[in-house]
């Protein structure tokens, strides 16, 4: 790695003692000796193991659940169904007033994705829990499912989630988060070229080496300590408090070093049900996702579809950009409505475009609910934007890097969401990339600056 301190030297204060120093990490000695404690390194006598009975169907009505054989299985201590969960229908962003509650902790009357949690089995050993789980009888009436976002948005599509009433999230702005800036149609009308292209991704897993999980121990005083690898301690505690209708002072969450997160451990999934199990049995409970669960059950990065329509002038200026983004939330919201609107705030990318129109939709389908991941709401949009930039440059016969200089945002430029640009540095990154990659651009671009005269 090379630190290029010649850029922005006038605004940076050096000569600090600790900041800017490559100090050794204080946690690494624990890592290399195997002494760092992760949540699963705690083991309590009498600890029960929780295994989940999951939906084998993408969409089905539950006619009945029979847990009697499972309950009789040797080693089984308790079997939990929806009726055991005090506040079974929840949504995690309710803490910041983003509703409605749309997801069940344990399925109640219906499953909306293959893998959805239906019944929790608590047993003395993992094996006993697995054997008992196989004895839970669930009678399903399979319903039509929808997997394609375009299909889901068509009239007459199977309704994924009744708590929304339609297969998209309803923002205060309507069916999508909107950004309107300038007059996009007027921009297209005067453009020399129009290019409309569609981009698509599929779900991506965080794949941390440590799977999601927690170990819960009753403290003996009506409090429960939950050792967890959540990325957000109080966010998880407060949601657990709501789901279990248990005052927050009864809950003690202990985290620590997490074996990789990447956004995959901000859903509140394992803790509430494990704490409920500990409360109802009085025993420590371990609920740790298997690798199969981590790969297919835990929330992935959402699949997205991004449609970009640009109006561009022969001289390289983008004069109008219309972006329609679709985020595949899967069956439940989790963080997806927030991710979709984060996209709305991100487009049209780090470029100054005078006429912008953005619609971002959060769409429900019968698949594993998606949620946050590294680059949430932006990563796939950047793929779409930057491939589009390459296409536009080639369309008008311009070098792709020079084309970006022409459009790059600079200090003071008004963004589509009506914030003036501050602290821009795109131009300098591109100048340095031009040098490092031996990708020469015209001298006028190398002379540019993100600073505006007088700004």
């Amino acid at each position, binding site marked *: 790695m090379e630190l290029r301190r010649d850029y922005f030297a006038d605004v940076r204060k050096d000569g600090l003692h600790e900041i800017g120093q490559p100090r050794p990490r204080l946690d690494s000695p624990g890592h290399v000796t195997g002494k760092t404690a992760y949540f699963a390194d705690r083991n309590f006598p009498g600890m029960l193991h929780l295994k989940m009975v999951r939906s084998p169907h993408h969409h089905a009505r539950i006619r009945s659940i029979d847990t009697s054989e499972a309950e009789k299985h040797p080693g089984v201590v308790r079997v939990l169904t929806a009726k055991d969960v005090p506040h079974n229908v929840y949504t995690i962003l309710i803490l910041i007033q983003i509703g409605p509650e749309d997801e069940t902790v344990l399925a109640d009357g219906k499953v909306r994705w293959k893998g959805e949690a239906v019944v929790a089995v608590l047993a003395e050993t993992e094996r006993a829990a697995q054997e008992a789980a196989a004895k839970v009888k669930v009678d399903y009436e399979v319903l039509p499912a929808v997997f394609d976002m375009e299909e889901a948005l068509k009239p007459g599509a199977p309704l994924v989630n009744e708590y929304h009433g339609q297969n998209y999230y309803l923002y205060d702005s309507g069916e999508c988060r909107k950004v309107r800036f300038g007059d996009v149609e007027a921009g297209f009308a005067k453009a020399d070229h129009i290019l409309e292209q569609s981009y698509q991704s599929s779900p991506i897993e965080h794949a941390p080496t440590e799977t999601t999980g927690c170990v819960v121990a009753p403290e003996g005083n009506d409090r429960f300590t939950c050792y967890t690898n959540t990325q957000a*301690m109080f966010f998880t505690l407060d949601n657990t408090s709501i789901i279990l209708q248990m005052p927050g002072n009864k809950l003690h969450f202990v985290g620590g070093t997490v074996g990789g997160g990447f956004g995959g451990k901000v859903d509140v999934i394992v803790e509430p049900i494990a704490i409920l199990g500990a409360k109802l049995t009085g025993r420590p409970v371990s609920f740790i996702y298997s690798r199969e669960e981590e790969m297919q059950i835990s929330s992935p990065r959402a699949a997205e579809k991004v449609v970009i329509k640009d109006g561009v002038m022969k001289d390289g200026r983008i004069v109008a950009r219309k972006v329609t983004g679709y985020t595949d939330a899967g069956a439940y919201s989790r963080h997806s409505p927030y991710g979709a609107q984060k996209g709305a*705030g991100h487009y049209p990318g780090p470029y100054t475009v005078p006429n912008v129109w953005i619609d971002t939709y959060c769409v429900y389908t019968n698949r594993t609910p998606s949620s946050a991941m590294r680059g949430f709401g*932006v990563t796939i949009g950047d793929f779409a934007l930057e491939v589009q930039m390459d296409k536009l440059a080639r369309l008008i016969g311009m070098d*792709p890097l020079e084309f970006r200089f022409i459009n790059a945002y600079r200090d003071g430029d008004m963004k*589509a969401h009506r914030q003036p640009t501050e602290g821009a540095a795109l131009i300098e990154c591109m100048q340095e990339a031009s040098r490092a990659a031996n990708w020469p651009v015209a001298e006028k671009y190398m002379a540019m600056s993100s600073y505006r005269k007088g700004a």
Partner: protein
Amino acid sequence: MAIRRGRGVAAINYPTGMNLGGDPTQALVHSTPTGNFMVTLSSVDLGQGMKQIMAQICAEMIGVPTDRVIIDTADTDTGPHCMGTFASRGTHRAGNAVIQAAKEARQVMLEVAAEELEVNASDLETDGQGNIQVKGAPQKSISIFDVALSAHFKRGRSISGRGMFLIPRSYPEKETGAMKPSTCYAHACTVAEVEVDDETGEVTVLTVKNVFEIGRALNPKMVEQQLVGGSWMGISHALYETTEPYYPNRDHGGTDFNQYLMPGPGDLAETEIIVLERPSADGPFGAKGPGEMCANPQIPAVANAVFDAVGVRIDTLPITPERILRALKAQAAG
């Protein structure tokens, strides 16, 4: 058979912190009797090194070496509230909270030192090595060790401070979308060079040259860790990763590390990292969040390089050999 080479560029920016703000983090700082400093938080370290960075921030603010700072975090019985570790917010939000808490603790520490040295607190400075001295007269000094002892046992003072950082929540305007998603943005530009086997569609990423502007590299070696690992993940996203390989068809989702594809140690691109620093107005020492954005620019850069190599556009992620081969066959068929 032909191995064809191409290169592509992409440039991006990325917001620091939770979208639209409203995401508080608090911190407490106090000294032990012998002048070590405890930072109490509830922020989570995911492996990115949040604890180390908070220790360096506190050390810088107080004026002690980093190894005299202890981080106590991720325990809801002791740590004040943190919204969580996500959205590239850890360093920015928790760092600011630690700065504020450490500032308050430092002020008490200087007041006690001033009493011991019989000078005004405003005339004192720290040397970064654990000593407090009179500005312009460094021979007149007292160690922070002695100041802490004095505070605890003689003066009855608590060298401690409270810190809080909150960016007020922005609510998007319904019709126009006017909003404030973030207060500062990191930037990046990546040039990727690839080889494409035009008979199999296989892609080899030869080099990635990444330029990242991250505000301030608080610990350059740890920044490098993030950026190198992120660059790998970006390439991985571009070419390999999906839980639903036949999306929107739900079949054949991988359930292990053999089926969920990521580049192995034999697939590594030659990776160059260059860091620029334009300090942000509201970041701790100007820092922005580098953790997420470093995995973004490689994806379109690789996609554009594939086009440059073989002349087909793959607009669907991941850019698998199959997608390239299908496009090449369609191209050949005219």
